[in-house]
């Protein structure tokens, strides 16, 4: 049986941490829309998220469907592990 390497969890945790920062900054900026420093931080983490998404998907397959992630050949959307199996 295929085992998930430790790096999968490290990358996933980083991705979750960056996602959480983006959620917090989004809520903050909804009420502080002229805070330039926070907007710079938001854009920094948006870029960081793209980098992490690319790093994760290049190793472990697509995170999102319907055109939001690329597929390799053969089609690997339905490859295990599925989210509830990790």
């Amino acid at each position: 049986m295929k085992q998930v390497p430790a790096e999968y969890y490290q990358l996933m945790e980083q991705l979750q941490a960056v996602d959480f920062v983006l959620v917090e900054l989004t809520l903050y900026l909804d009420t502080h829309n002229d805070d330039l420093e926070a907007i710079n931080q938001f854009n920094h983490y948006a870029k960081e998220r793209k980098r992490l998404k690319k790093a994760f998907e290049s190793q472990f397959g697509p995170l999102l469907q319907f055109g939001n992630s690329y597929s390799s050949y053969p089609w690997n959307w339905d490859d295990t592990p599925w989210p509830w199996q990790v």
Partner: protein
Amino acid sequence: MNTHFKTFHPYVSPFDPCPPILEKAYSTPPNLYMGFQPPNLEQFTPLEALRAGTLWKAFYDPWFSPLEPGKGGLPQ
């Protein structure tokens, strides 16, 4: 007063069928005392924020029942 918990002492009926809880606690997280959030508050790192449940240190509330030991959150 800014505390994570406040307590009150409910009335205890002499006919209470259960052992009474003499002191009850309720949560008063820091955001209650903040009003409008000022800019440039000190932040957690992203990995800490994920466990703290907030990006800003001023809002961190280690929420757990006063009757049970804390689980999760940031390491003490």
